[in-house]
């Protein structure tokens, strides 16, 4: 069974379009995350939700909007896509957000290419 799943795996779109990436976890975790990995493999957190509540919101353009309909799902909507948005986006989840020892479980990633 897939623990953290993302759809789609690949997304090719033109500048200016709006797109969404979906994420689901079946681990019963309370906290979910979105990360962006650039072409140099640098991985940076974008957002974090705990029980549907936004707890981390890094310096990300407001064209990016996360939505958590329930604690098992965290979707990422991107408006007015730009060339610089091309990257691999990873969803992850963890058991809690207490800041104590925990590990994160990552999805397989969504490779977004903006042309």
């Amino acid at each position, binding site marked *: 069974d897939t623990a*953290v799943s993302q759809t789609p795996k690949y997304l090719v779109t033109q500048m200016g379009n709006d797109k969404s990436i979906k994420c689901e976890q079946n681990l019963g975790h309370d906290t979910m995350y979105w990360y962006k990995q650039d072409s140099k493999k*640098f*991985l940076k957190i974008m957002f*974090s939700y705990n029980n549907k509540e936004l707890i981390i919101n890094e310096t990300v353009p407001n064209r990016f909007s996360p939505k958590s309909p329930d604690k098992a799902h965290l979707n990422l909507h991107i408006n007015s896509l730009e060339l610089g948005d091309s990257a691999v986006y*990873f969803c992850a989840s963890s058991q809690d*957000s207490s*800041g104590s020892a925990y590990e*994160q479980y*990552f999805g397989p990633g969504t490779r977004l290419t903006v042309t």
Partner: protein
Amino acid sequence: SQQGEEDPQALSIQEGENATMNCSYKTSINNLQWYRQNSGRGLVHLILIRSNEREKHSGRLRVTLDTSKKSSSLLITASRAADTASYFCATVYYGNKLVFGAGTILRVKS
């Protein structure tokens, strides 16, 4: 800015040899974690070491943490071709936010 920095950036070894990767960070941490990423895949958690721990083992993996030097090392013993991947250290220093380093690309030749 990036919290963790890995060294070396890339490492190529023969199967059976040991691989050592280092990670340095800048501020006090709660814990430090190592992850593996195979090409085109998501990250897989390998090991977590708390700030009050000095060494931890998991199978062929050994992680050390030196908080006075703000550094950690990951040792993979008796490497296998399947260990070929990118390895990232990540620090938890503010709430639950993981901050990743740039990674070490390990290639194990058979």
